[in-house]
């Protein structure tokens, strides 16, 4: 597998764009229930703090701050775009599907219908050392979602 299959264009783009980053400078929408989670990968120092706001059963905002490799930062960016507007149940389903693909060592293909841009992380599953990088913001989102919903 080539490096370009791991670092797909979408991933490199998102690692620069960092949609949803700037937690400290963003207020949660008034009246929304929120949950916040901090996750750390002690191996490489990747760190993400993610806050998720839920109103009327829907995710209305994902905001995060983080530092880490391009995979972890791109993954948080993709997640915050994707999750915005989803119902709580939908986001749970997407997180579950993402986790299944990432932990499959390349055996389970990503469903682009369900995962959207996050399907680009399919190649990461073949690099065992990088799976945690892709998962870190998703673990934070799941934790935050459980607090908020």
């Amino acid at each position, binding site marked *: 597998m*080539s*490096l370009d299959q*791991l*670092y797909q264009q979408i991933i*490199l783009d998102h*690692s*620069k764009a960092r949609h949803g980053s700037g937690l400290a400078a963003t207020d949660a929408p008034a009246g929304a229930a929120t949950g916040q989670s901090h996750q750390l990968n002690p*191996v*490489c*120092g*990747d*760190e993400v703090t993610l806050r998720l706001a839920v109103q009327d059963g829907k995710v209305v905002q994902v905001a995060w701050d983080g*530092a*880490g*490799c*391009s*995979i972890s930062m791109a993954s948080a960016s993709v997640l915050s775009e994707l999750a915005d507007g989803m119902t709580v149940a939908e986001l749970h389903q997407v997180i579950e599907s993402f986790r299944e693909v990432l932990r499959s060592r390349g055996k389970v293909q990503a469903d682009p219908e369900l995962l959207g841009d996050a399907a680009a992380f399919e190649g990461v599953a073949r*690099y065992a050392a*990088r799976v945690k*990088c892709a998962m870190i913001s998703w673990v934070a989102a799941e934790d935050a979602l459980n607090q908020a919903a």
Partner: protein
Amino acid sequence: MAVVSTPATLERALPAMDNAEVLRIRNDFPVLNQLVNGQPLVYLDSGATSQNPVSVIEAEQEFYEQRNAAVHRGAHHLAVEATEVFEDARQTIADFIGAGYEETIWTSNATEGLNLISYALSNAALWAAQGRGDRGLRELALGPGDEIVVTEMEHHANLIPWQELAFRTGATLRHIPIDDDGSLRMDAAASVIGPRTKVLAFTHASNVLGIINPVQELTALGRAAGALVVLDACQSAPHLPLNVKKLDVDFAVLSGHKMLAPTGIGVLYGRQELLDILPPFLTGGSMITTVTMERAEYLPAPQRFEAGTQRISQAVALAAAANYLTETGLDRIHAWESELGQRMVVGLEAIPGVRVLGPAAGRERIGLAAFDVEGVHAHDVGQFLDSRGIAVRVGHHCAQPLHRRLGLTATTRASAYLYNTTDDVDRFLEAVAGVRAYFRA
């Protein structure tokens, strides 16, 4: 006519190492001869773990094929042979580091060696509190008001055991700070180390900075304060001539797998007088004289600190590794690796956006370089290099406080050994030069 050998011809210095010799050396290391991601492997991660020459692999295999038995027990032939090669290995390692035979203790690795010292010291405090042991032991007992001194550049293995020893005994942990270039602030060392200092622990060579610390100056400060001096020789013993007696330290530790031996074997050196006084760390079989249902008497060192069945084949393999290094010549290896280290730093400093940690080009360093690439996380750098067949380490290298001090969370580290050529370094440099463009940094 008799041929008279003069000492000069017997000790004739071998010429300096060069690429031609390294290419011959590489034939002894089968693992290096492979393609990774379609390209010949460039292994620059020996600071994490080194590769094994055939002689080491065969020494371990031969032990299992011909001599395997438990040592120091049993009257049968194999038990005697196993004990012989096991103790011969101890003598080889003792000679390798300039220690006495009884002062050379097997451990699993340097981490265990440092934990052994720290637990033996807190056991000394416990014994002393209950009136067990003699006056010598009471002098080793730490308590509130006493201080343990380390440096800001330590590997976690030479930091956390001391944090925990301070916690267990009520002593205070202090540290010698570093300058921006990584060198120890010796002015500060002179004030941090004082009459309260009971233990001074520091690394000989930094696994991140590549810097060689001024052991003699530090030891002199420790001696003047009456402190025990503990040397982490993990990154020095494999790469340069080491003599614990000449360095005048009280304890030293090393890991076998960083010096051409298998994992699971390490060495602790301790000064005889101290080892005879210190309580054991692990207790059990093989380290006792008399045992009743109530209590036990312990053997002197080294057995005192070697409870349970030992890592026999690994010890034999470590001796083979030491022989390999001695035959090649540690002074020659050190010179060659210094050359590779300089080549790395000169090359890295010339790449825009790359910041090398530790001493600048031209100043002394061992054969490793850790660096930051602006705008690209170390993990991505490592992945990029791997795609070109180059193995390096990424992360904080078990030195979080050091990285924090330098304003970083993770770096990339290339570390060479006697089997690396200048071509390896050049391929590495060429790859690093392409990193920022790939990640559009």
